[in-house]
């Protein structure tokens, strides 16, 4: 399902080069790298620092500051559960517990078999049809235990 390319320095350099002329290009580059590889490999840090003429610490700081960027590959499937108040009011905490127990992972972790990554998200803007989730990019509203169970089962089996 993930369909990410394996890390490749030459390809990364191309991606960085394509954006490097833009004003404030660091975030667009990090997004582009993550879209292709699923994460931002440590080798990208010196490449970006060189291209943007900043220190490696600055690039590392971006990756660790922004919740979206990953320094390690994600599982084949990513399930994001909203933890915002609107979703809490409709039972999101119980669903979060269900997901963590069923997968045996905590927030931000990937199952041992590398199949599923569980991530928190603070609001998908689906607050009028809470609780909500995003499973491999697909938005889900009015999530309940049964639907979550089938999403998790499907992710664990493929």
């Amino acid at each position, binding site marked *: 399902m993930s369909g990410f390319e394996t890390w490749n320095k030459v390809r990364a350099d191309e991606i960085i080069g394509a954006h490097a002329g833009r*004003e*404030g*290009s*660091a*975030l*667009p580059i*990090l*997004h582009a790298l993550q879209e292709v590889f699923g994460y931002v490999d440590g080798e990208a840090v010196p490449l970006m620092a060189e291209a*943007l003429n900043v220190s490696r610490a*600055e690039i590392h*700081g*971006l990756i660790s*500051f*922004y*919740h*979206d*960027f990953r320094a390690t590959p994600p599982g084949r499937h990513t399930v994001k559960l*909203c933890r*915002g*108040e*609107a*979703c*809490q*009011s*409709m039972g999101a905490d119980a669903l979060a517990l269900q997901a963590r127990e069923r997968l045996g992972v905590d927030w931000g972790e990937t199952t041992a078999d590398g199949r599923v990554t569980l991530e928190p*998200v*603070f*609001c*998908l*803007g*689906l*607050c*009028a*049809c*809470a609780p*909500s989730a995003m499973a491999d*990019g697909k*938005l*889900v*509203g*009015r999530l309940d235990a049964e639907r979550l169970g089938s999403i998790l089962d499907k992710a664990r089996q493929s």
Partner: protein
Amino acid sequence: MSRAKIFVPRDAGSIALGAEEVVAAIEAAARSRGIEVEIIRNGSRGLYWLEPMVEVAIPAGRIAYGPVQAGEIESLFEGGFLGGGAHPKRLGVPEELPYLKRQTRLTFARCGITDPLSLADYRDHGGLKGLERALSLGPDKTVEEVTLSGLRGRGGAGFPTGIKWRTVQQTPAQQKYIVCNADEGDSGTFSDRMIMEGDPFVLIEGMAIAGVSVGATKGYIYLRSEYPVCRFVLDAAIAAARAGGVLGDKVLGSAHAFDIELRIGAGAYVCGEETALMESIEGKRGMVRAKPPLPAHKGLFGRPTVVNNVISLASVPVIMAEGGKHYQEYGMGRSRGTLPIQLTGNIKYGGLFEAAFGLTLGELVEEIGGGTATGRPVRAVQVGGPLGAYFPRSLFDTPFDYEAFAARDGLIGHGGIVVFDDSVDMVRQARFGMEFCAIESCGKCTPCRIGSTRGVEVIDRIIAGENVAANLALVEDLSNTMKVGSLCALGGFAPYPVLSAIHNFPEDFAKHSGSGVKLAAAE
């Protein structure tokens, strides 16, 4: 028979409830019958308990059906829904639905009605009139109109938009910027998302008016990454606006140049704060800047910059088209015009309700929202996002007005209301207020960075029943330090949900004291 026109929203909420499956089912059903249909992906009308809401165009207007699931499409075709035929899911004329009829849709006038990506449709429904008028009036008079309208920043701070524009206009510089803050991170809000998905040209038009007025040739929309549907729609709308001459070297054929670039955030809530947002566009960590200098003097890349929320900018076209005075006539006190209020969480009729300022919290939650979705009594509502206060029913007479909420230690923020039923544990909610701040703090100032983490720890001690009265006093003290000592609204307002939970729901905290110790906060 001519091609039947069917509307199925391409709104993230509708999609999350099955709109894509509905579209596929309509296409399959039409194909099997040899009928040609044109499916228009409109925005949502904002009645989420009825989504996906499918509408068909008949000679007399439009007929709505909802909530429609893919499995019901066959029976809809059997019932002749293309001609507005009977069906258990038939809702009738959408504009006649009481929820819509009671609203005053100025900013959201076209949302759900037009094809969001058709510039021709936008024009046919009154679009671009505001920009045309701004171009003919000239920059000075345009800023005067915006000032006259009484429009205040809809992102939450409520700063008068006209004054902000005037400051940038009067600051000389080679390059100025318009930055649209589309980092709508507050739980319980989605009005930015809805307008960007349902009527993106109104935002583009508003930004162009701002650019032309203050002398900025470049605009950025900073969109949060959690809104993929918005990204798709905005990309297409910006391209269409360029092709249609709304953006580019000659805005609507005038001497003014203006273009827009879309930038995607990366999951940091604090980037909704204007200075952190600009740092992020510049390619840095979203660390808050100290003010002054104001962004209007030294903003993005050190240049004079207008930073406005999506709804503020999207309200400008109607102000310019109808005049500032017309807009100013709605509302109460110093809160003029309309506010798209978002009714969310545990609520029966969740959705977007645009109305003039002045409705009370009780009217919105009980009457319009219909109480809770679970059917249990409403116990608490959080207004204004994760940094907003929790109000009990006893404060339901508070009118929606910036000053009225402030007077009761709350804020209207971006206009989101999250409803909780009587199963809510307010100690948990108070803890979450601190936890959220700890997760999202940018780390620049100490009260926010350290205060929030200590806040979680102290509330954990209260939950464990340790020295409850003393620890509550400590939370109060810590909260006050964060309020007055933080650099931005994240640390400065994070105490609002915490203190309001303690003050308005003391019984939940008293439960943890065990020995029945009288709590200072409960007095």
